[in-house]
C-alpha cells in the first residue's frame, strides 16, 4: 500500500497535538506500522517540536507554516519537514550524552533511535528540509 500525504501546520506549540493526530491517522491506514506507531508518532512530533523550539527560537507570533509530508512506498517510510525558520546547520545538531542527566536535548536522540536515517536536504522555497527515513523490509 502506497501512502503520500501532506499537511501544513502553523508554527506553534499548539500545533503539536494536530501533528500527532495527522501522523496517527496515517499510521492507522496500514497494519505494517502497528508495532511502531507510537515511536513513529513520537519521532514526527519531536521533529516538529524542534522546528518550533529551535528554527523559530525567539520568533513569537509568526504566521509561518511548517509542512509535513509522509510517504510510504516500496516498504520505505519517508517523512519530510519543511520550514522557513532559521537555517539549520546539521553539524550543530547533537543530542546530549545520556549519562549527563539534565532536562532537554532528548528529542534529537529519540528521532535518531527511532528512524534509520535523519538528513537535511535542499528544498526550493524553504529554509530547512529535514527528511526522516525508515525501512520496513526487515520488519
Amino acid at each position, binding site marked *: 500500500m502506497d501512502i503520500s500525504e501532506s499537511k501544513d501546520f502553523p508554527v506553534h506549540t499548539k500545533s503539536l497535538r494536530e501533528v500527532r493526530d495527522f501522523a496517527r491517522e496515517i499510521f492507522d491506514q496500514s497494519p505494517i506500522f502497528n508495532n511502531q506507531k507510537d515511536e513513529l508518532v*513520537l519521532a514526527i512530533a519531536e521533529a516538529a517540536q524542534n522546528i*518550533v523550539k529551535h528554527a523559530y527560537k525567539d520568533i513569537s507570533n509568526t504566521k509561518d507554516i511548517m509542512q509535513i509530508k509522509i510517504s510510504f512506498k516500496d516498504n520505505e517510510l519517508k517523512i519530510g519537514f519543511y520550514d522557513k525558520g532559521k537555517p539549520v546547520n546539521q553539524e550543530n545538531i547533537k543530542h546530549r550524552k545520556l549519562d549527563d542527566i539534565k532536562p532537554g536535548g*532528548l528529542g534529537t536522540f529519540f528521532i535518531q533511535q527511532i528512524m534509520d536515517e535523519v538528513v537535511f536536504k535542499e528544498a526550493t522555497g524553504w529554509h530547512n528540509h529535514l527528511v526522516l527515513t525508515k525501512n520496513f523490509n526487515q520488519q
Partner: protein
Amino acid sequence: MSYNVKEEGNIATVYLNGEIDMDVTESAKEVILPLVEAKKEVHLNLKDVQYMDSSGISVLIESHQKALEVGTTVKLKEISKSVLKVIMMAKLEQVLNLD
C-alpha cells in the same frame, strides 16, 4: 493535559491526565515544582498519561533534580505503558524513582 492534586500529610499526589508535550510543560511544572520546593514527597501518578515527549521527560528530570536539591523525593506511580516506553528509551529507569 489536566491534573488534580491530593495531599495527605507530607505526601502530595499529582494525577496527570492526557498528553504531555511542549505546549503544556510549563503548566505541569507550575503544579509540580512548588510542591517539591515545599519539601513534600511528590507522587506523580501517570496512569492516565497517554503520551509524553522529550519535553515531558524534561519535567520529570527537573522535578527529580529539584527534589534531590531540597532533600525530598519525586516518585513516579502507575506509569502508563507508553510513558514507560519513552522513559526506557531515554535510559532513565535507573535514574528516576519508578514505583
